[in-house]
């Protein structure tokens, strides 16, 4: 048969291909950062005319969001949902078909965006045909997940299951509505479209990336520490608050802009309220880790998770702060916002996925990670590189904001030139991050081809899923 039915194969294949798209997407990101330092790098070179900043940047964002992070999330769903449900994935064949579909779709994303076929909407640059196909991809994955839950043996739903069901229920709605119901020509234009775009742009972060990421934390922390989570009741309060509070926050991207005042105020108020669900996660994190901090010295996945918690806190500290009108008037459109976005997507959710892969992949392929030393290098190079990256963007953003607010519009170029040292630091940080991921991919490759078999105590009991 063309598509494998082996248990765990769909999850494994999604993990393998997601990390490849991560390398490609991050390479485009590094190239974009280099173009900010040497803007004329590809000028006058015939083939490289496709690689201008305006084309490279959306390729980067789409490949890291949909290629890497969403691919890893599909893999995480296919790994965790069966183990939470006590039953195998409903269809490994459908899952593997989704893997093939996803890889073809990501290739189409890259090619069409490089050719300049850009819809001009943030995080939704792909053409409407590809958007329709993206919805099909979500449907293929989510149908499999829903059927697995429907056939579950484990009747009680652990908080991770709630987060994953929440993602399945809300992400397609946000994608379809936020992309104007996938019409070939956008019926809504101008400022109204900006409102719809940011309904999509921000809520896809809250209802897709945050839900799966936080759900994964709640799964991994007990597995890495041996402690059950500190308070399931608190985690459920956090889940329901997230579901309730995240929706109206999108318009905080348009604060101080030509959108209704009341809409901005709602978005600001709900953005501040988002503090509470974040605090429930952090309280549970510290409570669960209590007495188990020694494990941090020996566990690289735990190092990634702890770092992710720090970045998650700071992302959600910045968010409410920068939604305030006075702060937004300084940081809006600056590199501060770029730093903030990367804090969420790299520092938080990508770090969580690294921990997930180091945990799940050995169990899926029954092999130990090939090199513990490479794992350490991966962690420290990622952490140091990313710290340099977001600190330079944050300080650079504040410098930009103060340049513009002090009426530098008469001398805009001065504010651009002032950014040069920060752009250089950002590119150096980005190069370190990419280098770390190349080590990671090499380690994964060697694990798959030459890793030693897992010991009896580490292999899953009976079948790959729960309760046996």
């Amino acid at each position, binding site marked *: 048969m063309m598509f494998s039915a082996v248990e765990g194969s769909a999850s494994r294949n999604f993990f393998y291909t997601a990390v490849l798209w991560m390398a490609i997407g991050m390479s485009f990101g590094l190239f974009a950062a280099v173009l900010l330092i040497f803007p004329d790098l590809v000028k006058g070179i015939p083939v490289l005319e496709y690689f201008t900043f305006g084309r490279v940047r959306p390729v980067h964002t789409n490949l890291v969001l949909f290629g890497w992070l969403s691919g890893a999330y599909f893999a995480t769903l296919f790994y965790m949902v069966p183990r939470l449900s006590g039953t195998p994935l409903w269809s490994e064949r459908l899952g593997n078909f989704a893997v093939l579909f996803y890889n073809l779709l990501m290739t189409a994303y890259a090619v069409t965006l490089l050719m300049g076929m850009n819809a001009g909407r943030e995080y939704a640059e792909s053409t409407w045909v590809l958007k329709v196909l993206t919805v099909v991809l979500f449907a293929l994955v989510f149908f499999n997940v829903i059927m697995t839950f429907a056939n579950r043996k484990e009747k009680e739903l652990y908080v991770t299951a709630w987060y994953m069901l929440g993602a399945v229920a809300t992400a397609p709605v946000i994608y379809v509505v936020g992309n104007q119901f996938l019409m070939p020509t956008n019926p809504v234009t101008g400022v109204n479209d900006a409102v719809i775009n940011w309904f999509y742009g921000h809520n896809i972060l809250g209802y897709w990336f945050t839900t799966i990421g936080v759900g994964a934390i709640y799964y991994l922390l007990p597995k890495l*520490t041996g402690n059950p989570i500190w308070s399931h009741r608190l985690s459920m309060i956090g889940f329901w608050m997230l579901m309730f509070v995240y929706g109206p926050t999108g318009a905080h991207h348009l604060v101080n802009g030509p959108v209704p005042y009341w809409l901005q105020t709602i978005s600001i108020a709900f953005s501040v309220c988002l503090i509470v669900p974040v605090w429930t996660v952090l309280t549970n994190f510290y409570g669960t880790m209590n007495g188990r901090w020694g494990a941090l010295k020996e566990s690289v996945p735990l190092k990634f998770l702890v770092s992710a918690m720090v970045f998650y806190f700071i992302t959600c500290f910045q968010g409410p702060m920068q939604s305030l009108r*006075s702060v937004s008037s300084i940081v809006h459109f600056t590199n501060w916002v770029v730093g903030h976005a990367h804090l969420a997507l790299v520092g938080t959710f990508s770090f969580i996925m690294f921990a997930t892969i180091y945990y799940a992949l050995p*169990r899926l392929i029954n092999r130990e990670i090939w090199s513990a030393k490479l794992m350490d290098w991966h962690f420290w190079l990622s952490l140091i590189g990313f710290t340099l990256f977001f600190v330079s963007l944050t300080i650079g953003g504040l410098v930009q904001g*103060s340049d513009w607010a002090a009426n530098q519009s008469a001398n805009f170029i001065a504010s651009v030139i002032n950014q040069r040292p920060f752009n250089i630091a950002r590119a150096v940080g980005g190069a370190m991050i990419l280098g770390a991921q190349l080590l990671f991919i090499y380690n994964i490759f060697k694990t798959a081809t030459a890793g030693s078999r897992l010991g009896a105590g*580490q292999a899953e*009991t009976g079948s790959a899923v729960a309760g046996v």
Partner: protein
Amino acid sequence: MALALQLLLPAKAAAEHLSGGASDLMGLYGGSALLLGFTGLLGVLGLAPRRWRWFGYRYGRWLLGLGLLVLLGGGFHASVVGTAERETGDVALGRLATQQLLGTLTVFASFWGLVYYAARRSGVLNMGESVKYAILRNGDPPEPTAARVGRPGEQRLMWIPVAAMGFLAFFFSAGVLITLLRLPSGARP
């Protein structure tokens, strides 16, 4: 301290711009209310640190109530300070904006309230603590580090992420405040 600064120097934090002007006073009141409310919630749920647990049980509800008072009182104070609708005197615009605001909140609260009600009625919503042990018995074995015996003094490692969070929060707040205060007075938001 931030709230005190806002009350003493409200004009400097006011955002004057085309879509209306209002201070971020409500943001500070909201943040304070959330802090009080969350502390109260931890107390009510019995999740305060052991030494403070009695305090949480006894005063948790009071803290929740105080948070609500701060929110409502702060809203009143912020609206007294002034909004664009009041300054322009456009009553019709103010009424329309209020209707839209209330309408949005009603639809949103109704939808999610219905979802929560349906989940509780069907018995699917399980807030009990027993479910958290399910993850440890699901056949997916924990990492070897989960069985590691802790050594004396390792609990101090907790202070690394705590310090990192504190430092970064201070760094970002200070950066924003310094940027705002260093602007020429005519350029300040």
